[in-house]
């Protein structure tokens, strides 16, 4: 009980540190994050849980950047209209990014905030890093 926080409680907590999960470029320029478990989170969260979150995020980004029939159709249609449809239509990528934002918020509410952590949507960091903010645990005291 002392360890759990809600998102509202977190606003009264202080930030202890931040962890940055960098991009994984081994498969090229597609958006993937490293699944390596950061050492700073060892005391806070289960490794399995963390890796599952990262893997889900990676899968979502892969879906956004997938070369499939739908993206080709979108591309060809855009080309034929001199790319003016981008002004009116939301691309598949943008739709998936919204899904990702919702997923991250959901993860924050359910899993990370009770443990005193907060995930920042990578799109707000230019898809460079996944920023995890570690909050001080008020009940335990400052570290």
């Amino acid at each position, binding site marked *: 009980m002392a360890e759990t926080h809600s998102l509202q409680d977190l606003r009264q907590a*202080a930030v202890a540190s931040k962890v940055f999960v960098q991009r994984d470029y081994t498969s090229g*320029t597609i958006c993937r994050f490293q699944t390596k478990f950061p050492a700073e989170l060892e005391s806070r969260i289960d490794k399995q849980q963390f890796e599952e979150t990262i893997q889900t995020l990676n899968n979502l980004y892969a879906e956004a950047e997938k*070369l499939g029939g739908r993206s080709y159709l*979108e*591309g060809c249609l855009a*080309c034929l209209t001199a790319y003016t449809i981008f002004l009116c239509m939301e691309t598949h990528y943008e739709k998936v990014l919204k899904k990702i934002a919702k997923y991250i918020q959901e993860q*924050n509410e359910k899993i990370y905030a009770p443990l005193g952590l907060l995930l920042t949507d990578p799109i707000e960091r*230019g898809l460079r890093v996944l920023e995890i*903010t570690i909050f001080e645990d*008020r009940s335990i005291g400052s570290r």
Partner: protein
Amino acid sequence: MKNCEYQQIDPRALTASTTRTPTPSCGRKSSHRLRRKWEVFPGKNRFYCDGRIMLSRQCGVLPMTICLIFITSGLFFTFDCPFLVEHLTIFIPVIAGVLFVFVVVTLLQTSFTDPGILPRALPDEAADIEKQIDNSGSSTYRPPPRTKEILINDQVVKLKYCFTCKMFRPPRTSHCSLCDNCVERFDHHCPWVGNCVGKRNYRFFYTFIVSLSFLTSFIFGCVITHLTLRSQRVNGIIQAVQETPARYPFCFTFMHLHITLCIWQMILSLICTLNPSCTIAELVICFFSIWSILGLSGFHTYLVASNLTTNEDIKGSWSSKRGEESGNPYSYNNIFTNCCMVLCGPVPPSLIDRRGFLPSDDAPGTVTSDADLPSFMAKNDPNMCTQGTKEFLESVAHSTVIQSTCAPGAPKTTPVTQEGVLGTITVSSPSRPPPTGCTACQAQRPINTSCSQRGSKQADLHTHNPTIRLPSPPYTFNHRTLVLSDAPDVGFIPLH
């Protein structure tokens, strides 16, 4: 290259800010409007239409490009089309019209679209990267290595560290010195379109040069036809040329290295009535002009088919001289797949969020009052509601170090003083305002506001004493207890 560029708190700025009386009512709009992120964008870009359109700061030749296209096509439609419609078919101006629209639209899209600019690293992130570089075994006396080697598809690729953007550049990203931005999949900086050509606008650029090739070839063909038809009706080509308006050779002006040719054409056309044989020479020149633009299109078609960028091709990054095993790791080894990926593949939205609102006014030299918040709230109420928790928490997260410096011993008493402190920290920010360093200080305001959404009691607090009164004592207390524990980019001098 630590980003400890923050200066000491300037006592003069403190005095200056205390002269401003904080406005008590939060319903009244302040004189400072809320700023959008494009207004403090650090790169050398120009923004129009409130951030919707962006250009490189050096876009000098773009107006000329547009003029050339318009003049050329205009003359074609005015002088050649009537004759050709009468003697051939109506489809000639129709086709030319379609191509013209394609050319103009894709040119404008190439120029006005974000090419794939990467936002610069925030101070926390930059410090984390620095820490990793320093920890990788190098001593503090030797400058740490600023490249990182990674394996992409079993090939070694070196990632370079960008000192301006303070991050390791992703693969295929390059820093454009003209725009002062790191651009993803950087192709080249094109002065004719007045923008970089990168991941997000390469397809527009390619469509532009291809449709321009078609347009110029089409116009060239039509003019030849026009001359031929006229010469058949009169006594030879010379008389035909003399009959047509002297300006029609303007039709053949193009992009990319054609400025000298344009001047030639202007001179030649002025004297062609005097000496008809010049027109023939001009046609020859124009033929070579078309050759150039067609050559450029052909070159880029080759790049598209092999999934290369101009930058990589010029540097010879994946050339065979490095050995058999060195090939392009990004290529799909299939021309069709490469073309589809480059031209029809998915495109991420702009990463720099030009039209997003800043947490509050953080321009150097300006001090915002808390009355900004209501206007901020009014504009972003839905956003705050839907993303309120996340953004709000992030603003808490951002306000680490600064919170402690901003919360002086008596936060509840002198609001003016505290505002002065806030204003001071804003004022003392460097010329290139760091995204979160100073704004973090102001970030506590959205917190005030969000709190007011949650409880009327807090709303009352906000309404009646809006300036800097923090919502609840425990909150303030916690922030006071937060010391600069692991905050990496400590440049501020704490007040206590």
